[in-house]
């Protein structure tokens, strides 16, 4: 009820240029993270993809349901059986904000740049060999080896197209130069605080320019976001289950969709740091010891789905029967530990990032109940990923998004990933992975075997898929969630009409 009043206050207080009737088409979104650089090659996923999409178009568009649609590329297809040559047909009516025209040469330049720019998602192009501008509107991409996720990548960070002249320049860090629906208003944007975007004149697809102004306000702190969205200072933002009640009471509209799975990654499958983990029975015992329902209820207020597998329902390799593969059974857990020779339990050290202590305290409690003595060691968030990658810890909690089959395999299972610090593999698994990689359209089906293998061998101890809980002011706008993505894409917001 007061949102209108606050919005009015904001309009007259000089936050926004005098907009008259168009004032209602301005939107303020609360964001959790900000881009490190506006270089499109530095884009990431989720929170760190959304801001780029306001100013950069991608080659392909990933719709809110996860299906791919034309964007800068009007059509695309693999031209060989081995699925290693991909040919895209590009739009010819697109320009970048610095005036340069978008064509196949520009697209090639972007892919080449992405490959060498050493961005956090550089691995997306690990199978990319070369790109060729056949003509102005035809781009041919050659892959070293089939990559079932490649089209998906072109809708993500790897597909963002910047002006070829700008992306290698120095200024790109601070000022984006793309072909996207909006341009950043530099003198109203402050790092660490807010970014302001206005529609770009002459954009090829005005239907994507739904707002007269978009402000992204960085609010890393959850309570600050609750305060901001309930008092109408931002129009939409991500909260969580614990704060949902407050936002609902303020009359905000709630969206809820699963994205990340959370659980323990039992890295040390060869027992290098924690010998007990070498035994599959011990890893299974950990899985049986977890009371997932209690965790979900106590920590996430039930907003999610318990699971025993790491592949998500939309991944293509999801197996409903694995959902409750390790139902809560502490007696069985103790039995398995006893069988493995650890009847009196063992010590397990887990790294503890800030903010996760509630969850891990429960995990510690539940594992302790079957005799596994968990020691939590605080690790700053800044060091958390690198600590995991160094193999200091035999197991660790993490929250990871559930991508398509091959994305998930690449992220979690292959020996080269950060989340496999001990490079564990077996010949059997390797064969399954190879088959999946080469499966083409059958990637999901083949991936099910990988899923079954890692679940049965208890490579992980997943807890649940937690729901993203997103709130927005329905009087001002309408939001559709983006599947498998932490926050909606810019295309998912529209004014409330």
């Amino acid at each position, binding site marked *: 009820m007061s949102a209108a009043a606050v919005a009015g206050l904001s309009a007259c207080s*000089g936050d926004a240029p005098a907009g008259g009737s168009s004032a209602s088409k301005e939107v303020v979104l609360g964001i959790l993270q900000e881009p*490190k650089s506006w270089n499109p090659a530095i884009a990431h996923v989720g929170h760190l993809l959304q801001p780029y999409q306001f100013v950069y178009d991608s080659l392909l568009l990933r719709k809110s349901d996860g299906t791919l649609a034309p964007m800068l590329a009007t059509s695309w297809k693999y031209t060989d059986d081995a699925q290693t040559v991909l040919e895209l047909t590009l739009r010819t009516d697109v320009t970048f904000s610095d005036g340069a025209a978008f064509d196949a040469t520009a697209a090639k330049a972007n892919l080449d740049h992405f490959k060498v720019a050493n961005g956090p998602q550089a691995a997306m192009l690990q199978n990319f060999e070369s790109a060729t501008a056949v003509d102005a509107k035809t781009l041919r991409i050659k892959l070293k080896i089939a990559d079932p996720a490649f089209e998906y990548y072109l809708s993500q960070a790897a597909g963002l197209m910047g002006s070829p002249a700008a992306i290698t320049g120095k200024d790109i860090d*601070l000022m984006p130069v793309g072909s996207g629906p909006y341009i950043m208003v530099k003198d109203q944007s*402050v790092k*660490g605080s807010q970014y302001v975007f206005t529609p770009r004149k002459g954009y090829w697809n005005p239907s994507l320019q739904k707002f007269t102004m978009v402000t992204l306000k960085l609010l890393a702190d959850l309570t*600050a976001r609750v305060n*901001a969205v309930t008092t109408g200072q931002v129009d939409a933002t991500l909260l969580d289950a614990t704060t949902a009640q407050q936002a609902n009471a303020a009359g905000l509209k709630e969206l809820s969709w699963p994205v990340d799975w959370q659980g323990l990654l039992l890295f040390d499958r060869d027992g290098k740091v924690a010998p007990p983990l070498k035994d599959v029975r011990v890893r299974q015992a950990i899985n049986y010891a977890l009371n997932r329902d209690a965790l979900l209820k106590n920590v996430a207020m039930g907003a999610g789905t318990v699971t025993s597998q790491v592949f998500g329902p939309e991944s293509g390799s999801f197996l409903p029967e694995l959902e409750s593969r390790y139902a809560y059974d502490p007696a069985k857990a103790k039995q398995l530990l006893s069988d493995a020779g650890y009847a009196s339990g063992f010590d397990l050290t887990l790294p503890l990032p800030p903010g996760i202590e509630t969850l891990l305290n429960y995990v510690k409690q539940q594992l302790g109940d079957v005799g596994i003595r968990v020691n939590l060691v605080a690790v700053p968030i800044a060091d958390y990923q690198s600590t995991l990658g*160094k193999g200091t810890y035999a197991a660790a909690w993490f929250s990871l998004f559930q991508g398509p089959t091959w994305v998930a395999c690449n992220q979690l299972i292959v020996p*080269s990933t950060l989340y496999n610090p001990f490079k564990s593999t077996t010949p059997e698994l390797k064969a399954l992975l190879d088959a999946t990689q080469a499966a083409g359209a059958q990637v999901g089906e083949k991936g099910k075997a990988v899923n079954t293998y890692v679940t049965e061998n208890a490579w992980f101890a997943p807890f649940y898929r937690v729901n993203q809980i997103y709130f927005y002011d329905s009087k001002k706008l309408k939001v559709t969630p983006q599947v498998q993505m932490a926050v909606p894409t810019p295309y998912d917001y529209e004014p409330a009409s």
Partner: protein
Amino acid sequence: MLQFIAKRLVAGVVALFVVACLTFVLLYSTSGDVARNIMGDQASAASVAAKAHELGLDQPLMSRLSSWLWQATHLQFGTSWFTSQPVFTAIANRLPLTLTMVCVAILLIGVVATFLGVTAAVKRGAADRAVQIMAVLAASLPGYIVGIVLVLVFAIQLRWFPAISRIGPRSGAAVWVASLTLPVVALMLNGIAGAAQQIRSAFIKQLEQDYVRTLRSRGIPEREILFRHVLRAAAPAGLTVLSLQFISLLGGVVIIESIFALPGLGSLAVSATTQGDLPLVMGVVIYTVAIVVVVNLLVDVANGWLNPKVRVS
């Protein structure tokens, strides 16, 4: 007087240099894995190593220190690891807000605390006890508690002020006033009573001086004695109290900015610390210490000016 100022200036620069060296060594001797953190989980080991090289993390500490110092003499403090922004720019963007808050707060503390302190010193009795009780209360409540209570009451419940800052680069005065009222009040509350108590002591000490009695014996009105003579004599002590308050406000602003999501130096310090953005942390330390050095210099000069022994010689 000029020599006096020059001496203090040199001392300040030396202090800055020492603090810079110590902070640099403290920060950078333990930072090994920041490249992985910058690059994210999908980056390959090779690209992480490349990043580390790009940041100069493979150089010996002392050579990094000397190159930092050399850059610093040109007012270049490196580039943020996480936002690619020059540290100078990042801080320059945020400094005005923080300085505004701190300066407004210190001015208000100065005025209110002087009023309270003088009242307590002259009236004694109930006024004195009230100031003492306030001082104990204020010292007992950490800044974050005050901040949270102010947000809950005045922003969430009463909606008189915004819960989080609405300040942007082109915001008008109205936005600044609205967004900064609660934070400044929160900042002040902790300092005001303590400063009042110290000003009270300084004032009483001067009231007990022999010359006050002699002035009274000369028939000078009490009000003139208090405000022309005693207040002036107590001013150096009061200024010193305020300069210490200023230093503590620069720390307190960290908490307050975080609670009110204000884009100032304090929230920059917190986010840089959380991320391990060492160039920014380093820059924030140097800037705040430089500000303190300047403020202390101003206070020294003011005190020197107030003291005829320094001024006249």
